[in-house]
Every structure is written in C-alpha cells, then in structure tokens.
C-alpha cells in the first residue's frame, strides 16, 4: 500500500499518544502529534515515534482538554492531513465527534484494524460482527484504542521537529469546578496472557471466588460476559469481554459457565487456546473450544483447584 503522506495523532493521555504515534508509521509517511504539554513531553513523543509535534500549550488550572479543540480544528483545516487519529478515551471520543461535526463528516470509531486499501474495521452488534468502513471525507477522523497497533519500543535516538502554535481560546460554555481522582480499576485485559472468564453458570456472586482462586493459581486475569458486568454488576465493566474496542489475544482462555454467544466469542476467539466448562452439552461454546468439560462447574472447579494446588 502506498502510505498516506500525513497522519496526525492526538490524545489527552501521554502513553496512548506515544503508542499511536509509533503505530501510525504503519499508515503514514509522516506522523505528527498534537500535544498539550511542553518541550520535554514533546521530546518524549518524538522518541516514541512522532516526526513532528505541534505544541499547543499547557493545561493550566483554567483550561479543560476540550478547550484545545478550536486550535486543533484550525490546524486540521490549514494542513488537511489525510487522517487524524484520536485516542479513544472519553475525551478523545468527544473531541473527535465535535471535530467531525464541524467538518461535516462522521468518525471512524474504535477502529481495530486499518487496511491497505484505506478501509478500516470496527466491531458492531455487541461484538458479534466486524464492519469494514471507509470515510468519504477529505480528512478522515478515527478513534483508536490501546493495543491496536501492537507493542512499540522507544527509540532514544529518534529525531523530530517541534512547532509551537497559538492557542485559540474556546468559547467554552463548560467550566470545570473540580477534579477528583477516581479509584481507577487497574485492569488491562488487552495485556493479559491468561484469562479466566466467568458467565451465567455461576449462581451467586460469592461463587466467583472459585474462579478467582483458579486465576490466581495459574496467573490469569478475571474477565466476564456482559450479563455479569452490566446486568448483575458482579464485576466492573472493564472486565467484560465482547465490548467493541477491547483488543484481546491471550495465550490461554478458560471460560467457566459461559454458553458461548457470538458476542462474547468474538471477543476471545483470537486466543491461542480456549478451554470451557459448562453443564449444557448443546452450548455453542463447545463448537469453539480446544478442550472442554461438559459437567457441573461447582464440582469440576474445586477438583481442578485441588489438583493444581497438589501438583504445584
């Protein structure tokens, strides 16, 4: 494929910005980062992969990240890169959408793959399928999550240029009164190499402890199906496999009490090995496993845990 001439990247999060800058070289000859920061952060971004950085200013107490949108809008209008990628944080999604509306186009949202022919892919229908889409716009606008471009490394010797640009004040009708740190859920399923996932086969929240024990024994992260995260609320949403945008490629995936509906399976079907325990022999998951047990997980799981403990 011929690379695009210019790919621009923006994120309100430094690490995501760095990751996408590195990955954007797969798409464009020249990668430009739009940065809220200072020269030192600009240098870091260059090392990560940016060829050029537009330094838009810093966040002082009075400015919100979103206030930088007019500055970004003007830069995009003046230079018209073929593609601008926003990291898909909540802020990123908002800003991408507002930019798109201003420019009369849509956003390619939560892209999981960019193809050589200018199309890209995203998950739809709760994860049951993948749509291949393409923007008609002069400047395509996309949002992308962590893990899409694969692991990148820092190159200390990398060189690039920095350009300070004028901050255009926003006529903001939104004022930030307060910011509070959130007890953030530090779950990173995309990085997990081993996963134990729980589904409706578990009758009570307390029973999840068995799954957690298994996970601990084999060094796995806990994940779950949609009803457990959204309906029953037994686990935080970050642990739900199947939501669009979560890239997921573990070596080992153990599904406990999960029936295997398409939405869920798409989330984990890139796993190297899939194991399932479910008491329903007709459950769709058994069409997509490497190893499975049709049995009562309330009997199998404790036995499995016992043996693992004994063997170790």
């Amino acid at each position, binding site marked *: 494929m011929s690379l695009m001439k210019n790919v621009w990247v923006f994120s309100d999060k430094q690490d995501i910005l760095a990751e996408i800058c590195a990955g954007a070289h797969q798409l464009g000859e020249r990668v430009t980062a739009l940065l809220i920061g200072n020269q030192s952060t600009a240098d870091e971004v260059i090392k990560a992969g940016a060829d050029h950085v537009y330094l838009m200013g810093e966040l002082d107490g009075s400015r*919100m990240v979103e206030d930088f949108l007019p500055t970004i809008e003007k830069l995009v209008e003046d230079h018209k890169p073929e593609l601008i990628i926003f990291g898909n*944080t*909540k*802020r990123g*999604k*908002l800003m*991408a*959408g*507002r930019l*798109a*509306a*201003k420019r009369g*186009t*849509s*956003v*390619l949202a*939560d892209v999981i793959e960019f193809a050589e022919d200018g199309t890209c892919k995203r998950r*739809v*229908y709760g994860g*049951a*399928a*993948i749509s*291949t889409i*393409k*923007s*008609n716009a002069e400047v395509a606008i996309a949002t992308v999550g962590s893990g899409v471009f694969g692991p990148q490394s820092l190159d200390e010797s990398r060189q690039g240029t920095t350009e300070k640009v004028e901050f255009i004040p926003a006529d*903001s*009708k*939104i004022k*930030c*009164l*307060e*910011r*509070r*740190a959130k007890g953030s859920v530090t779950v990173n399923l995309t990085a997990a190499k081993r996963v134990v996932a729980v589904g409706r086969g578990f009758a009570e929240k307390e029973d999840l402890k068995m799954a957690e024990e298994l996970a601990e024994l084999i060094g796995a992260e806990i994940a779950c199906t949609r009803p457990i995260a959204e309906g029953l609320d037994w686990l935080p949403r970050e642990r739900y496999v199947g939501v*669009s945008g979560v890239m997921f490629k573990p*070596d*080992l995936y153990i599904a406990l009490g999960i029936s295997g*509906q*398409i*939405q869920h399976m*798409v989330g984990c*079907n*890139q796993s*190297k090995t899939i*194991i399932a325990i479910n008491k329903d022999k007709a459950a769709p998951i*058994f069409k*997509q*496993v*490497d*190893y*499975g*047990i*049709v*049995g*009562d997980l309330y009997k199998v799981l404790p*036995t499995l845990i016992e*043996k*693992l403990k004994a*063997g170790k």
Partner: protein
Amino acid sequence: MNVITCYKIVPDDQDIIVHEDRTLGLEKAELEIGQYDLPAIEAGMKVVADAGGKVSALSVGSKHLENTKLKKAVLSRGPDDLYLVVDDSLADADTHQTARTLAAAIKKIGNADLIICGEGSSDLYAQQVGAQLGELLGMATINAVSKITVEGDKVIVERTLEDEVEVLEVSLPAVISVTTDIIQPRIPSMKEVLSAGKKPVTQWNLADIGLADNPKTMETINTLAPELAERKLIINEGDSEEVVDQLLANLRQELQ
C-alpha cells in the same frame, strides 16, 4: 425546562443469526429501544421531576419507528410526547446523518433547554451522535456524564472519565450524553403502559424538517461475523476425577 431525550430502535442482538457466508441475518430480530437510551430517558424524567418542565422523546430512523408497541414502550417510561422523523434513507444512516437529522428536528421542535442522549447505540456503538449533535446545534456538549443537577440556567454534572471524575458547570442549552450509571431506568407500571397510547405523537419526514439533502459521509463496505479459528474440540463429559485429570494434563501443557 424543556428536555428532549433521543433514542434509537435497534435489533436485539441476542436474535442475530450468522449465515453460512458470515453475513448477519437481522430480519427475525425483535426490535427494542437501545439499552443505553433507557437511562437517558429516565435521566430526563428525573431532571423535570426536580426542576419542573416537560420531556419529549425523539428518534429518527426508518419505518420501524412507527411500530405501535415501540412507541408505547417509549411513552410508558414517562415522556409527555413523542417526535419521530421517519425516512427509509435513515435505516443505515451514519452518525453524521443521524446527528444532522436530530439537529433539524430539535430546531423545529424549538425551545429545547437540555438534550440527553445515551452513551452510544447498542447496535453500532460509535458513541458519536451526542458529540456531533451538540456541535451542530452550537450548544455546550459533554459526554460520560453520570450525574446531573439543575441550577437555574445551568446544570452541574459529574463526568466519569478513565482515571478521574470532573465536576463541570454546563450552560444551557446543552447536549449531554449519559452513562448507564446515571440512573436505573424504571419498569413501567400498568398505568404508565395504559396511558402511553394516549400521548401525542408527531411524525415528520426529511422534507418537513428541511433536510431534503442529507448525504452519507462514510461507507460501510460489509459487515461479517469473524472467521472462527479451527479448534481441537476435545470435549469430555462428566465431573469425575478422570475427566478433570484429562483436562489438567492438557492445561499443564498449555501452561508450559
């Protein structure tokens, strides 16, 4: 306070069939109000319960919107009336087309103070329409809102981001996209269901709202279920020791 809550009618994704050629079959799927739109409607009801006013529900799409059961389903959740923009071209509208259509309808309804959207549609989940809508209307726009408190001609919102919560003062009129944490949607009571059928419904087409021209901004080339990897399919039945031992042996190999 005039509140407009936007919703989308989507197929129940539990009913989706995957054909041999990996395309999706949606024709048999039950239609429902998007699950992320229900808290948005309820949030609108809470705002007027606290601050007085009226809630109108609004949706744009194809003829599916005319389904009586679906209209009643929305109205049984509290809105005083319902506005629909129906046109078959909206069946596969992209987010920009949807946002433009909603914007035109909202302008025609007039006097909106607060527009509330769900965080995304439960079928395509681009999470874009709210953001685009606010920009097109020239109103304050914010997403990820988990709490709304009315204070005169402003609203104070809590916005739940990845690592922090922002407390923001938003001037009205505004477009707010809310998360599912904002409020638990009600289960309509019998009375609410029975009175839903009597509430006014206004239906427009694209020409009525001055949007004869609403071009696509992106193409969907195909939508396919992913290819399934070839799996070993080694499955044993029962909960006996032997069966578990067998699995353990395989598991140990993988843990190597």
